[in-house]
C-alpha cells in the first residue's frame, strides 16, 4: 500500500513537473550577473517582455502559449553551453545565445541537434551563408556589414572620398573584436584610407596606451569594436585626450545608454551604429499596460525603451514571426525546431508588418532564403545627446557594400564547410 502510494505520488510529481507539451518553449540564455550584466539585463528584459505580451494579448503565437526558460550564462562560454544542454530537452524551438563565444560552441551542437540558432548582429559572420550553416541565422545584419556600413557613412560624410584619411580601429582583443579587421582592410584598399589597428586586452579597464597612441597619430576617425567596460573607458579616454566625439563611432554593441552615461557631458556627440531604431513604439505602451502593470515584467521595468531593451524586443519579434511563419507553412500550431527553422528561412519582414506589430521602422525590410541567412545587413548611425540623455538617429538604414562582403562570406563559409566535411546545400 505504502509503495503504491509512493509510486502514485512520484508519477503525479513527474507529470506535474514535466514540460507542458503544447507550449512553445523559448530558452533565454541571459546574463544578469557579472561584468557584462549591464548589457545582458536590458536585452533579456525586452526579449522576455515581448513574449509575455504575446501571451497576455494574443494567447501566445497562433494560439499556443509561449514558455520562456531562462538560464543565466554570466556571458561565460562554458556556462552558455551548459545552459544549452540543460534547456534543449525542454523542447527548445530557437536559441539566441547573445554571445559570440557561446555561438561558436553551439553551432556544431545545435546543427547536430537540429535546433535553429539566431545570432542577431553577432556570432559567426559567414553563417550568413545558409547553404553551409543550415541551422544558423544572423539576420538582419552581421559584423562585416557593420564595418561596411560605418565606412559607407564616412564616405557619405566626406563627399564619397576617404582617400588619404586615417581611420583607427580600437578593438576588443578577442575573436569578436577582430571580426571587422579583414573587411576594413579590404575597404581601406578599395577607398584609399589608412587603417590603424589598436587592440585592447580584456576587460578593457586600462586603455591609456591606446589613447595616447591615438593622441600622437591623430587619426581622422576612430571606430570601436568594444563590449562591456571597454566601451565606457574608451568613451572617457577619448574625451580625456580631447578627441572630437563626432568622429568616434562605435559598433552596435558599443552604443547603449550605459556605454556613455559614466562619462557624463563629455560623451556628448559620440556616435554608434545601431541595427534597430530606438523610438517610442506603440508596442511599448502595450507592454507597459499588459505586462508591466500586470506584474509580469521580466525585470524591474527600468530598462523599458532603452537601446538594448528594444533590441531584445526586436529579436523576440523576429523569433515570434518565424514561429508564426512555421505554423503557416506546416499547418500546425505546436511546431518543432525543424519547422521553426523552415519558418526562419521563409521569413519576410516588411514595413507594413512591422507597423502592424506596433514597431514601425524598428529595423530594415528584409527577407531570408536558403542561400541568405544574413538579411539586409543594414544599420543606422545614431548620436548621443548628453543633455537629453537620448540617442538621436542621424541616418536612415544604410546598406553595406555587398560586393566586398559577399566574397568574404563565401570564402570563410567554404573554408568552414571544408574543415567540417559539410556539403553545401539547402534542407
Amino acid at each position: 500500500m505504502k509503495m503504491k502510494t509512493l509510486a502514485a505520488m512520484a508519477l503525479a510529481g513527474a507529470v506535474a513537473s514535466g514540460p507542458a507539451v503544447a507550449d512553445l518553449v523559448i530558452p533565454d540564455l541571459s546574463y544578469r550577473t557579472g561584468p557584462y550584466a549591464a548589457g545582458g539585463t536590458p536585452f533579456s528584459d525586452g526579449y522576455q517582455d515581448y513574449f509575455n505580451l504575446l501571451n497576455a494579448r494574443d494567447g501566445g503565437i497562433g494560439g499556443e502559449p509561449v514558455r520562456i526558460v531562462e538560464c543565466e550564462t554570466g556571458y561565460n562560454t562554458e556556462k552558455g553551453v551548459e545552459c544549452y544542454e540543460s534547456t534543449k530537452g525542454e523542447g527548445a524551438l530557437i536559441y539566441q545565445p547573445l554571445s559570440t563565444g557561446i555561438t561558436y560552441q553551439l553551432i556544431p551542437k545545435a546543427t547536430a541537434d537540429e535546433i535553429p540558432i539566431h545570432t542577431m548582429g553577432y556570432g559567426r559572420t559567414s553563417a550568413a551563408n545558409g547553404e553551409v550553416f543550415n541551422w544558423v541565422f544572423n539576420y538582419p545584419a552581421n559584423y562585416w556589414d557593420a564595418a561596411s556600413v560605418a565606412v559607407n557613412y564616412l564616405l557619405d560624410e566626406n563627399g564619397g572620398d576617404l582617400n588619404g584619411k586615417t581611420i583607427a580601429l580600437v578593438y576588443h582583443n578577442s575573436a569578436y573584436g577582430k571580426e571587422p579587421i579583414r573587411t576594413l582592410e579590404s575597404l581601406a584598399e578599395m577607398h584609399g584610407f589608412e587603417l590603424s589597428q589598436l587592440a585592447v586586452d580584456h576587460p578593457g579597464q586600462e586603455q591609456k596606451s591606446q589613447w595616447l597612441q591615438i593622441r600622437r597619430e591623430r587619426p581622422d576617425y576612430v571606430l570601436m569594436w568594444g563590449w562591456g567596460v571597454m566601451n565606457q573607458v574608451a568613451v572617457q579616454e577619448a574625451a580625456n585626450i580631447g578627441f572630437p566625439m563626432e568622429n568616434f563611432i562605435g559598433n552596435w554593441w558599443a552604443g547603449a545608454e550605459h556605454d556613455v552615461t559614466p562619462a557624463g557631458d563629455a560623451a556628448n556627440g559620440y556616435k554608434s551604429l545601431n541595427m534597430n531604431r530606438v523610438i517610442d513604439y506603440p508596442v511599448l505602451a502595450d507592454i507597459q499596460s499588459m505586462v508591466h502593470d500586470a506584474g509580469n515584467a521580466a525585470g524591474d521595468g527600468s530598462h523599458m525603451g532603452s537601446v538594448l531593451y528594444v533590441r531584445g524586443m526586436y529579436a523576440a519579434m523576429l523569433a515570434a514571426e518565424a514561429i508564426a511563419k512555421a505554423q503557416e507553412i506546416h499547418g500546425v500550431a505546436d511546431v518543432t525546431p525543424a519547422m521553426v527553422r523552415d519558418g526562419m528561412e521563409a521569413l519576410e519582414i516588411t514595413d507594413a508588418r512591422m507597423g502592424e506589430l506596433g514597431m514601425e521602422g524598428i529595423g530594415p525590410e528584409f527577407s531570408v532564403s536558403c542561400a541568405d541567412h544574413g538579411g539586409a545587413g543594414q544599420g543606422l548611425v545614431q548620436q548621443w545627446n548628453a543633455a537629453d540623455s537620448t540617442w538621436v538617429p542621424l541616418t536612415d538604414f544604410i546598406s553595406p557594400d555587398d560586393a566586398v562582403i559577399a566574397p568574404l562570406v563565401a570564402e570563410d563559409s567554404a573554408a568552414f564547410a571544408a574543415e567540417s566535411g559539410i556539403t553545401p546545400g539547402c534542407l
Partner: protein
Amino acid sequence: MSADFLYGIEVIINGLMAGVLYALVALGFVLIFKASGIFNYAQGVMALFAALTLVGIMEGQVPFAHLLNAIFGTDIHHFGWEVPALLAIFLTVLVMVAFAWAVQHFVFRHLVGQEPIILFMATIGLAYFLEGVGDLMWGSDIKTIALGLPQGGSFWVEDMTASLGGDDFYGFFIDKLDMVATVVAIVLVISLIAFAQYTKQGRAMRAVADDHQAALSVGISLNYIWVLVWSLAGIVAMVAGIMWGAKSGVQFSLSLIALKALPVLMLGGFTSIPGAIVGGLIIGVGEKLFEYTIGAPFLGGATENWFAYMLALIFLVFRPQGLFGERIIERV
C-alpha cells in the same frame, strides 16, 4: 628634442600614474597578507562592493530593493534623498568595518590554524559571496560616481610643455584624475605608515604581523587586530574603487582590477607597503614603455597584461620574495 623621445617621456609619466592606481589595489592585499598570512582573493570584489555601496548611499538607493519588491510586491527603489559625498564616504567606511567584523566573526575565526591554502579558498568563496550580495543589494546597472573628481587632460601641462618639441609634438598628456589618484595614494600610504608606526593599534598590528604567538603572549587580541586589518583593507579598497570607478563607472568588472595588482605583488613582495608602491610604479612604467616601443609597433599591441606578468616572473626568478619582501630563511 625629437617628438619620439618626448612621447617616450610622456609614456613613462603616464606609466607612473597608472602604476599608482595598480598600487592602490595592491595595498589592500599587502595589509591583509602581512597581518594574517591570508592572500585575499576578494580584494578586487571588496573594491567593487565599497564603490557600489558609496554610490548607493549617495543616491539614496534602497538596499536589496529588487529582492524586497519581488517578495512583497512593492515598487520601491529610492528613499527620495541624496547623501552628501563626505557623509556617504563615512557611512561606506562603517559598512566596510562591519564587513570586516563579519568576515572575521563568521569565517576566519573558525579557520585559525588552518593551512594557507584553506584560507585562500575561503577568500575565493568570500569573493563570489560578496559579488552576489553586491548585486542583490545595489543591482547590476552601471553607476556614475558623482564625487566631482576632475577628468581629462591637463591643458596647463599640455600648453607648458608643447614648446619642448616641434610641430608634431602636442605637449605632455597627463590625466587630472591620475594626478588626484597620485596625491590620494601618497596621503594614504603616509597615513598607513604613520598609523603603523605611531599608534598603539598600529604597533599591535605590526607585532601580530611579526609573530602571532609572541603578540598573543603580551595580550594583543588577534581577533581585534584582524578586524582592524580587514577594515583598513576595506578602506583602501574603497579608495581604489572610487578612482577606478571614476574612469569607467561603477560596474561589476571593477572586481577584475585585482588582476592588475597580482604582478605588482609578485614584484614588490606580499608584505611590504613601499614594495606595493614601487612594484606598481615599475609595472606601470614597464608595461606602458614596452607597449610603446615594441608591443604596438611590432607585436600588434595589447601586450600590457602579459608583459606585466612576464616582468614579475623575471623578478621572481632572481628574488622570489619580491623586491621588498621578507627574506625567506629556512635553517635546518
